[in-house]
């Protein structure tokens, strides 16, 4: 390829045209708005001082976990309630590596990914026999079993939780503030890209086919069992990595963090953001992670402004937030399964219709 061709491709005119073509598709506007919003939020959190750094750090960790869950639930369509179990596995593996030669940074991450992959494969085995409700129940069983094992291990050996040393990369201390945030965002971007690339290939196609109908996929020659197992494994690996990062974020691994409520919170994230895409998972993770901070700061003021007594909220903040998220989850699952992305998509369609209707003097024709 000549340098001319490269120059031509990156020329502003071509870029503009490509952008125009990309934005011409229904749904691309939504993606653009969500992507830009997330990017802006990420930059804001980077430069907004220690508190925003901290919020950004949790958002990034939960976003990794949400992507892990969305591989399984969103892409392959296998609903499971065991996200927290995999995070627990990641956190406890990281905690147990502390003090061993393998505690140097990339090792815990890699080991978590491998262990998560293997446990994910195991957890997919029940999926060979059944799906739907039974699979949901088997993932619930896994969640409780992992909680029990980590709890017993913790109370026998480290009653206060397993300590995790501050994160160092080489000689650099990157355990707090902006530097830790940058590490997390980099990892998040890597995970995001890897998943995006994988889903573009035949693997993603197989997952989508299974999600829509396992029998019909099988009739087409897709080995549903095998691809389901890979979805479980990949989801397990990513979620365990999130657990590892969580352990670094909190500085310790404690079984109480990784209970059923966290699993539910993780599915809530991907449902609220939009079950069908990774962008949705990211959005949901940020909403669910950041909202409590916003509510804590603002809600009492708003309620007081409306003349409502805010005491019940300030006194029961975590319970009230949990209730609110559960309510959101309930409504989204029942009435808007595509979450924020679905809503934005609807708005976009409406906008496109009015715009093109005005331009051509009629509404767009229905497809053949």
């Amino acid at each position, binding site marked *: 390829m000549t340098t001319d061709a490269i120059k031509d491709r990156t020329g502003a005119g071509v870029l503009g045209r490509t952008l125009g073509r990309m934005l011409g598709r229904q749904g691309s506007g939504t993606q653009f708005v969500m992507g830009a919003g997330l990017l802006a939020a990420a930059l804001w959190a980077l430069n907004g001082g220690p508190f925003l750094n901290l919020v950004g750090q949790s958002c990034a960790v939960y976003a990794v976990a949400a992507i892990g869950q969305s591989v399984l639930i969103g892409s392959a369509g296998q609903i499971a309630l065991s996200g927290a179990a995999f995070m627990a596995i990641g956190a406890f593996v990281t905690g147990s590596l502390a003090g061993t030669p393998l505690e140097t940074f990339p090792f815990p991450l890699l080991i978590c990914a491998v262990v998560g992959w293997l446990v994910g494969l195991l957890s997919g085995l029940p999926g060979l026999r059944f799906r739907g409700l039974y699979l949901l129940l088997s993932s619930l069983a896994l969640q409780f079993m992992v909680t029990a094992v980590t709890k017993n291990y913790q109370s026998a050996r480290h009653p206060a939780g397993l300590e995790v040393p501050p994160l160092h990369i080489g000689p650099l201390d990157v355990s707090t503030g902006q530097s830790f945030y940058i590490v997390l965002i980099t990892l998040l971007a890597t995970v995001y890209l890897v998943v995006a690339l994988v889903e573009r290939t035949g693997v993603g*196609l197989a997952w989508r086919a299974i999600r829509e109908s396992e029998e*019909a996929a099988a009739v*087409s*020659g897709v080995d549903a069992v095998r691809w389901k197992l890979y979805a479980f494994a990949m989801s397990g690996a990513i979620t365990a990595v999130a657990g590892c990062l969580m352990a670094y974020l909190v500085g310790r691994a404690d079984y109480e963090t990784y209970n059923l409520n966290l699993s539910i919170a993780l599915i809530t994230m991907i449902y609220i953001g939009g079950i069908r895409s990774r962008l949705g998972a990211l959005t949901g993770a940020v909403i669910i992670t950041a909202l409590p901070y916003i509510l804590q700061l603002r809600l009492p003021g708003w309620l007081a402004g409306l003349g409502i007594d805010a005491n019940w909220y300030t006194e029961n903040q975590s319970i009230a937030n949990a209730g609110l998220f559960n309510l959101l989850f309930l409504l989204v699952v029942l009435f808007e399964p595509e979450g924020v992305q679905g809503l934005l998509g609807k708005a976009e369609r409406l906008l496109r219709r009015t715009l093109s209707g005005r331009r051509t003097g009629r509404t767009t024709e229905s497809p053949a």
Partner: protein
Amino acid sequence: MNADSEVKTDARRLRVDGVDVDLGGVRILRGVTFDVRPGEVFGIVGPNGAGKTTILNVIDGIVRPSAGTVRYGDVDLCRVRPHDMRKHGIGRSLQSTHYFRDLTALQLVALGELPNSIVGALRFAGHRKRRKAQAEARDKGMEALRQFGLEQYANRPLSELSSAVQKLVDIARAVVTGGELLLLDEPTSGVSGHERGGIGEALRRLRTLGRTIVLIDHDPGFVTGNCDRLMAMNFGEVLDVGLPDEVMSSEAVKRSYLGESANTDVGIERDL
């Protein structure tokens, strides 16, 4: 195409012999026996719930018979898993196409040649519209869409397409999955009268290519006009097998069709 015509010569016959199927404690097929000669179009008619789809499920490995055998050439199909059927050249279209919503036509058709190995699938690109025409020409999926005149729908989600087009895309998928023996489950159901022509035409083309076809349809007129031999069934049993006109005029078949005409319009949508 050359490879295809070679396959035809080592003549494979599909033999279904004494098949019983029990599901949920109910006998759904009883002693079903027939065989399909290479290169012929074999029609199956029968009222709702007669067990036509179940026969295809048995051939395709989705339902295992409780008695009897299914052989294709010298392969015992009862030992082959559904997704391996394509290795034996068997493709299947589905009765209802509402399963796949988000997939585009090209993606659906590409499923038929998606490798099941991780490396193969990671390198697979048959489901993506590509820039270079040569790269695309290597993909069976795009080629099959072109054969059926569907390339303009390649990147449209299936849910946006009319049911006639959906059916055609699904037949194209079956052809990509396994071109030698095609199991077509009601290709005209849900398709309006004047759109059936296109599907009939596709069938005739497949037939001239020498494909062996098992064709199920509700509409006796459509089947008799498009098949070499016909099997009529009811309540999970074979009523008659033979030339289409003979079968349609046999007493047992007439009776079963008159008898069921009262409830044909119940039309409970059944899976697969």
